[in-house]
């Protein structure tokens, strides 16, 4: 797949019209059609490659145990709801609710702090600004496994293991860095003249921030919030280390379905299906900003 795409002889319609004369010989046209055919084939392969694993997850979640290992998969057989019912009657709803609470609180904290800090940085004229931004960026490089050691020891000492406070504090910092980068970028797009006008109208600096700048960056705030939500929702390692049964989030329930001798694929995929739905929906809503957010605000 990787090697064939660029060599496919398929000039796009748009480009071909601009460059080539109207009358074309038979040969290039045939090649053109062939190239388009290959392109469409590749597109189909990519689409299926992305979707089949997800579809398979949902299909197994809706299949009785006897059909889990049957290949080829019968995509249209009668749905079996036993796995979903078992998962919903267990501890999973508690974990799902935790995920929601923790993600929402983290998102709110991060968005407020990142908006305020991002605005101040966007208006700052100081050599410290670059330094601060790159320090913030550096926080993204550190692997969770490394920071988890001291955080776990600290949380143990403060008796904060398995509390909302600990996990929310960690997630807030974990997301703050890229959120500041993103909001900083959005505030740079607000024309300074508009803010000046606000000052002339008698608003304080905070007033300008709240009533002028923030209102002009509402799409940016929404994009940032959604990304923080997705990343927090999906995070596994910190939750695995810092929570037990009280503040545990949905990903931490997944390893529990892998028994020593057998895996309860149906229930595990039922839990997974419910767990991945919110990020998929939100991800599609903010897809324009997704790549930028996932790169830690690095990529424009």
């Amino acid at each position: 797949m990787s090697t064939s795409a660029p060599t496919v002889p398929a000039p796009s319609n748009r480009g071909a019209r601009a460059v080539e004369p109207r009358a074309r010989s038979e040969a290039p046209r045939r090649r053109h059609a062939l190239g388009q055919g290959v392109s469409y084939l590749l597109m189909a392969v990519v689409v299926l490659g992305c979707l089949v694993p997800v579809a398979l997850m949902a299909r197994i979640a809706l299949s009785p145990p006897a059909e889990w290992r049957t290949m080829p998969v019968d995509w249209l057989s009668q749905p079996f709801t036993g796995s979903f019912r078992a998962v919903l009657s267990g501890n999973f709803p508690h974990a799902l609710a935790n995920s929601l609470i923790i993600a929402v609180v983290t998102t709110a904290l991060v968005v407020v702090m990142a908006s305020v800090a991002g605005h101040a940085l966007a208006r700052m004229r100081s050599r410290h600004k670059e330094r601060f931004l790159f320090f913030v960026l550096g926080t993204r490089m550190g692997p969770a496994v490394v920071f988890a050691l001291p955080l776990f020891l600290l949380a143990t000492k403060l008796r904060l293991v398995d509390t909302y406070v600990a996990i929310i504090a960690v997630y807030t910092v974990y997301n703050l860095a890229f959120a500041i980068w993103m909001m900083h970028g959005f505030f740079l797009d607000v024309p300074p003249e508009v803010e000046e006008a606000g000052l002339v109208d008698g608003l304080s600096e905070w007033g300008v921030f709240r009533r002028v700048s923030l209102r002009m960056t509402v799409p940016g705030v929404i994009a940032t919030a959604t990304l923080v939500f997705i990343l927090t929702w999906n995070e596994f390692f910190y939750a695995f280390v810092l929570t037990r049964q009280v503040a545990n989030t949905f990903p931490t329930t997944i390893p529990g379905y892998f028994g020593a001798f057998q895996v309860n694929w149906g229930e595990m995929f039922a839990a997974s299906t419910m767990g991945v739905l919110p990020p998929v929906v939100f991800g599609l809503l903010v897809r324009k900003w997704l790549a930028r957010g996932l790169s830690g605000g690095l990529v424009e």
Partner: protein
Amino acid sequence: MRTSRRYTITALTPSVLLFLLVLVFPTVYVFNLALRRHSLTDVVNNRYIGVQNFVDLAAGERFWSAAWHSLVFSAVSMAVSLPVGIAIALLIQRRLRGTSLLRAVLIVPMVLSPLVVGAVFRFMLDSRGFIDWLLHFVGLGGTAFLAQPSTALITVALVDAWQWTPFVAIVVAAAMETLPPSVMEAAKLDGANAWQELWHFVLPQIRPLLVLVALIRFMDSFREFDKPFIMTNGGPGTSSETLPIYLYKFAFQYYDMGYAAAVGLVMLVLISVTSTFIVRRFRASEGVAS
């Protein structure tokens, strides 16, 4: 708007305080920890032991093998996701019908929990599972990819590539859109020259961004924990044990926090050195968002 010093300080204080509390303190603590014998099970013998943890680590074969596995993991994940991602970006650039569907679908792998991705592929890769069936269907033989020491690590790395290839594709496609149309025309030429044009003409134009994407892919794959954990947990034996898994086992299964912290510091050094190398070598900073 020129903001006052007071405004700047007030606005930045909460974030800075939180960074200090939850980030700088732990980093300092890791250094301290790495120089101690700090076991959670055998507390009486905990004490400063200097660089002994690092000596142990350098002498341990299992550590070097984990470090090697991590590099292989990142290399495979990058070697697949970058070229395939660029190829998909070129496909997006053709603007055929259905491209918006393609773009939407590419979002899906990225927003899935990496742990769930690992679980789904573990199911698909089982012997006589979906991938096995698919390979037989197209006339190739399958095998128990995750159960064999020779294939387990590379298989997990390929799953990592599956999740992040769309990221490369979307970012590169966005960068290509900012290029003048004439540049992209070159990549659409028929015949044998297309590769050369792409390599010598199109890709150099977006080089800073490509380097940045490579950097992000390196950092993310190097610290990837979820997929190796759920798919093989380092097995069979230690054949797919990467540094994050190795560190996790020492810290949270053997409770040897001091040694694990030393491993963590080595990881940080490896990430910094490799990142600096990538940035210096290719001057990635040109591509950093304003």
